[in-house]
């Protein structure tokens, strides 16, 4: 069987998964009574609501097959979040300066146009600006380079 490729169908599937997951996890939380609502009441109700919406979109997606617009960059979708993650890791282990350099170069790499000289200049300038602004002027307590 061929799977439908409409965006509504897949949004529906995603909502069903999230809603069902929420109900499944929340089954262990005390549901409570109408007088004393437990921790489980709100999540279970919301989970069911999401599943219902998901079903609606999935069924609608079977009839209506509007596809996802073509204009989007897979490169940006992967590289940009990774640059952020690199910033997080380097902040903990290497310090503010390496984290900033990695983030700015990494972000720039997510764009379609990557001119190495321009990117390096931008990266150094931004890092210097942020060190001056956040570390020296606002006094955020982060080491510039760990161990130095």
């Amino acid at each position, binding site marked *: 069987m061929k799977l439908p490729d409409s*965006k*509504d169908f*897949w*949004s529906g599937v*995603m*909502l069903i998964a*999230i809603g069902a997951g*929420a109900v499944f*996890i*929340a089954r262990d*939380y005390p549901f409570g*009574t109408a*007088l004393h*609502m*437990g*921790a489980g009441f*709100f*999540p279970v109700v*919301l*989970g069911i*609501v*999401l599943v219902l*919406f998901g079903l*609606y*979109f999935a069924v609608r997606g079977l009839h209506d097959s*509007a596809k*996802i*617009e073509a204009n*989007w*960059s897979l*490169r*940006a*979708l992967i590289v*940009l*979040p990774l*640059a*952020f*993650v690199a*910033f*997080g*890791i380097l*902040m903990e282990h290497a310090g503010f300066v390496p984290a*900033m350099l990695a*983030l*700015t170069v990494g*972000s*720039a790499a*997510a*764009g*379609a*146009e990557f001119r190495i000289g*321009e990117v390096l200049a*931008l*990266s150094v300038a*931004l890092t210097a600006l*942020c060190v001056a602004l*956040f570390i020296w002027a*606002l006094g*955020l*307590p982060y080491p510039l380079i760990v161990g130095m």
Partner: protein
Amino acid sequence: MELFHNLFFGFDVALSWQNLLYCLIGVSVGTLIGVLPGIGPLGTIAILLPITFNVAPVGALIMLAGIYYGAQYGGSTTAILVNLPGETSSVVTCIDGYQMARQGRAGPALAIAAIGSFFAGTVGTLMIALFGPPLANVALEFAAPEYFSLMLMSLVAAAVLAQGDMAKSFAMVALGLLLGIVGTDVNTGVQRFSFGITELSDGIGFIVVAVGMFAMGEIIANLGEPEHRSVFGAKVTHLFPTWADMKQSVGPILRGTAIGSFFGVLPGTGPAIASFSSYIVEKKVAADPSRFGRGAIEGVAGPESANNADAQCKFIPMLTLGLPASGVMALMLGALTIQGIQPGPEVMTQRPELFWGLVASMWIGNLMLVVLNLPLIGVWVKLLTVPYRLLFPAIMAFSAIGIYSVNNSSFEIYLTALFGVLGFVWTKLGFPAPPLLLGFVLGPMMEEHLRRAMLMAKGDPTVFVTRPISLAFIIITAIIVIVMVAPAMKKRRGEITG
């Protein structure tokens, strides 16, 4: 008169040199991001929120508000000169504004947009001062059932009135409510959806969701679109509109202000709806509608007044009821909460300097914006030549530092990256992000009020319809749903049978 007394007090607060400075920073940043396409007030305010921790609450609010209404001014510049909406609220300004620029009348177009915005901003500020206090007084009588019904009403209205697919907005509200309850349940101490991760036991950070979805998600989306920008007519000569221009614009500005004020207090309607409605109205009342689309000054004056009036009036429900009527207002509520202020009708009596100081600063800010936008227009035009590829790494850098500085935790950085991806995917699938943010902010409050209401009524759910104010909210909710959903259903049935 008490109103004047209060306004004087407000100006006293707003005219302190620190607050003037915060106001100036706010409106300058607002104009800047308004002029630049690809970054809006939502993302900017989310990024700058952490920096406001160290600022006094009044100053923080004045600055963040300045960014918001400043962006409405800046958006028109790009619309008129580049035919690109700097902000979504300026989409219709492109139509006639750009045509005016092509006819060599960029100056009058920019001037009338600024004058209209200033008039609308002044009226909007007065509306807050006039209607805020009585509304807050009514709200002081509210108990848990009223709050629950009020929140239900605003969430339903937000989903129904949002642009795009209504069902998708509702789904996003539900998703936001669910995300909002992650963490320790305040009533029972149960850990919900925290997956044994200690960082999640305090819940998902508000800034994490906002920056992820509105800053990173937007950038990912923008990088998929090819960039094309050409500034039209680098030189803007003779700024002043002629007497005929002014006479033609008086009506549109007045009508636009009224339309904007009306839509402003409704939850869920962005400034784009107000400006669109104003454009349609102007075209309807015009003696010669064919001039529209060919550089009619009314098509600039009306919508630009409407979007600014809308932006100002959005503050009314936020300041008096603690209710966010838009994504930006949800961020403002977040800013208050972070400052340790419980949003709601008590703010006005317990922290009058906050309310009146903000109101007065808005008028001052609007005045600053006229100065910033007209004589300094050349500076902003020059900024438009900065390519996006140099801009977005800077936005990412400020976002990352802002988030990291909240809890000094890398975990929140990773979570932001996740929300960036999710925000992009949802937007691409046609699910709007602002309703999610509203649900996220209101989720914990709604649950709390629901529980309290049920406890108060000894478990009787009819409490929501037996108390008159609560009943009124429920009835309004029902009317909104019937009015908006029924035609859609009818249309759908027609499609199937026909």
